């Protein structure tokens, strides 16, 4: 498959670009909700509009009422979300939770997917238990109790946790904290007793929670996939999420870069446009190269994932790490080249820097994924 968008995908990209620039732009969404101290950190009306566009269920199988599209298509939407810094539960709900639910029973799918597809429901995923992403270590416990399970533990960095109608929770049903096996995934509904959230607003104005599970009682039908065999589902979910986060990161990087290059063409100093200075031209050209390469790696990862290739895992980590590096460069150069005005809240460039920091941390930063590339390569 060639590494560029085919005709249908290019059409989707045009649609998504127009829609997100019009409805999901910074003034209308990010600044609007931030300045009102919105408790969700995103607008439900936009989520509903995204459902009307067919975005919310694009990764859901057609048999389950979705569009049955792939990660290239989801990536197209995510890149536009990134470019516009659109606060949205798309990544957590339509990519991560939707991927987990593919492994769920018909009953679970029937309970949750229609709400997702209609844009009425929002989902979150609870994986991390420490400040850094360490999915190899799961200490939250789910003990057998009657016909079901009783969950105890704490999760952190649960994006949209407080707004979520359902949270996918990775918990341990057997073995020690570091064991690969013995993991089970659960669909934990919003109002279950013993579930509590400590809400925190993050640097990019998004909302996350520290989530506690104190004797949360769940029926056996809340299990996603196999009991004790949840690692495979968790890995599939993480893989989809990483490729998706990389795509969103490409959007963040391109948005910041475009803004900066435009600024270089407008701002005058010493009687010249600053874009005429070779010192800045070279840095901008280097940045362009890095962002283009990161984007190629991301499209490659999307295609490998859609094709079911065994190399998708390695390429997903390459993409996540490369995008994190390129986007970091883009926002740092962006703020620096804007000069003093880049430090003001009034200018959008700083918002890109904040979003990059939060997004890069989500599902593993550049260090985590470079280390993974080494491990998967056998060193």
């Amino acid at each position: 498959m060639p590494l560029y968008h085919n005709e249908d995908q290019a059409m989707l990209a045009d649609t998504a670009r127009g829609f997100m620039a019009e409805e999901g732009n910074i003034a209308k969404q990010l600044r609007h909700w931030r300045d009102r101290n919105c408790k969700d950190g995103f607008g439900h009306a936009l989520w509903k509009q995204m459902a009307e566009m067919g975005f919310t269920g694009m990764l859901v199988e057609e048999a389950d009422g979705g569009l049955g599209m792939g990660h290239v298509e989801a990536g197209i939407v995510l890149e536009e979300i990134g470019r516009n810094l659109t606060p949205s539960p798309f990544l957590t709900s339509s990519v991560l939770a939707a991927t987990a639910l593919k492994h769920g029973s018909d009953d679970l799918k029937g309970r949750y997917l229609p709400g997702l597809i209609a844009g009425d429901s929002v989902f979150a995923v609870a994986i991390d238990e420490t400040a850094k992403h360490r999915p190899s270590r799961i200490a939250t416990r789910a003990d057998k109790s009657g016909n079901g399970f009783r969950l105890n533990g704490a999760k952190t960095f649960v994006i949209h946790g407080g707004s979520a109608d359902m949270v996918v929770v990775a918990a341990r049903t057997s073995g020690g904290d570091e064991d690969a096996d013995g993991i089970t995934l659960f669909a934990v509904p919003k109002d279950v007793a013993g579930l509590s959230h400590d809400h925190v607003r993050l640097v990019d104005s998004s909302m996350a929670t520290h989530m506690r599970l104190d004797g949360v009682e769940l029926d056996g039908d809340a299990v996603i996939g196999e009991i004790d065999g949840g690692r495979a589902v968790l890995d599939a979910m993480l893989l989809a999420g990483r490729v998706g986060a990389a795509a969103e990161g490409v959007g963040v990087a391109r948005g910041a870069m475009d803004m900066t290059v435009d600024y270089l063409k407008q701002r005058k100093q010493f009687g010249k446009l600053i874009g005429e200075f070779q010192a800045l031209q070279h840095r901008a050209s280097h940045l362009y190269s890095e962002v283009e390469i990161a984007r190629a790696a991301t499209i490659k990862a999307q295609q490998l994932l859609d094709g079911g290739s065994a190399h998708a895992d390695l390429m997903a980590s390459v993409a996540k790490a490369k995008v994190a590096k390129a986007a970091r460069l883009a926002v740092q150069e962006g703020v620096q080249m804007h000069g003093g005005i880049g430090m003001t809240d009034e200018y959008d460039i700083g918002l890109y820097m904040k979003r990059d920091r939060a997004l890069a941390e989500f599902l593993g930063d550049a260090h985590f994924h470079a280390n993974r590339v080494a491990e998967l390569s056998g060193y």
Partner: protein
Amino acid sequence: MADLEQFRTETRAWLEANCPPEMREPVRGEDDIYWGGRNATFKNDAQKAWLEACIAKGYTVPMWPKEYGGAGLSAPEAKVLREEMGKIGARPPLSSFGIWMLGPALLHFGTEGQKQRFLNEIARGEIRWCQGYSEPGSGSDLVSLQTFGEDKGDHWVVNGQKIWTSYADHADWIFCLVRTDKENKYGGITFMLFDMASEGVTTKPIKLISGSSPFCETFFDNVKVPKSYGDDVPAYVGTINRGWDVAKYLLGHEREMISGADGGERQAAIGAMMKRHAARLGDDLDPVLRAELANFDVDALAYAAMGEKFLDEIKVGKAHPAQPNMMKYAGTELNKRRHELMMAVGGSRSLEWESEATEGGKPSKSWLRTKANSIEGGTSEVMLNVIAKRILDLPGA
């Protein structure tokens, strides 16, 4: 697709029957590479047999039309051939600046007479070419070149000096940028072809930091260059005084080649190989070095995806015309990093300039050689200038 699979089967069978086992070994030294030319000698019968088989099949220049010595393969067919040759480790039958540089320029700008004569010679490896671009004082800034051809009616008298002329001391002919109008900066250069045996041409090798000397200084002292070599065979490519168009076109090819976008070693991850290398030396990777290797592999694998995307986009005309500059910039910087890391893993062993273990200092010589990557074919800084102006559309300085 079915046709392509059939082509693959046939190619595999042909290679099996025609590529001698000796030609399936990695290239170990300069004499394993056959450059062709009037004075070329074969290292052994296998090298000769392999070249002759490829010439007969058109496989020295697989994508060139059959009437010019090629096999007329489509891009997907040529890719299959490359892949199948790669699988058995087949050496290229013929290495040649005629194939890589002059050929594409002649295919694009040459007259029918030039194509018939020169392309067939190149495909058969009969004439070894060198490239006369750079001059002292005119490296990346080629339009400042000074070598002058004075118009004497049916011929020019060329005086001047070229530098970095790769293998000029072994070349039979030169394709050369010569100023023919001193008033016009871009529009006063002619792309000439002439015999290195012409009276007044001398060459002198330049010893490099790597210890080898593939490059030469080349001097022209009243060299007489005729304007034509026969009916429809002008001694210049394109139009007189419009050689810059040809040079620019050819530089695009050179940059693609140097960038390794067509599948060079720069695209591969090296971490696992370096761990094995360290183990052979009785060592393990230092944690910080391992981290640097991991970061390198991220960049290398991402660049490989970019290379693939770039080639896919070229095939359908989607690539930006200045994209080869980006590939060249990123690819050559990456290759320098690769060799820095390889030297670091080898430690004191990779410093050995003369020893059996390093086959005469191969690691350090390769490392030193890569430093030229971001200079030759246009420096990294020139690449960045081109990206700034032609892709990002930044204002001219």
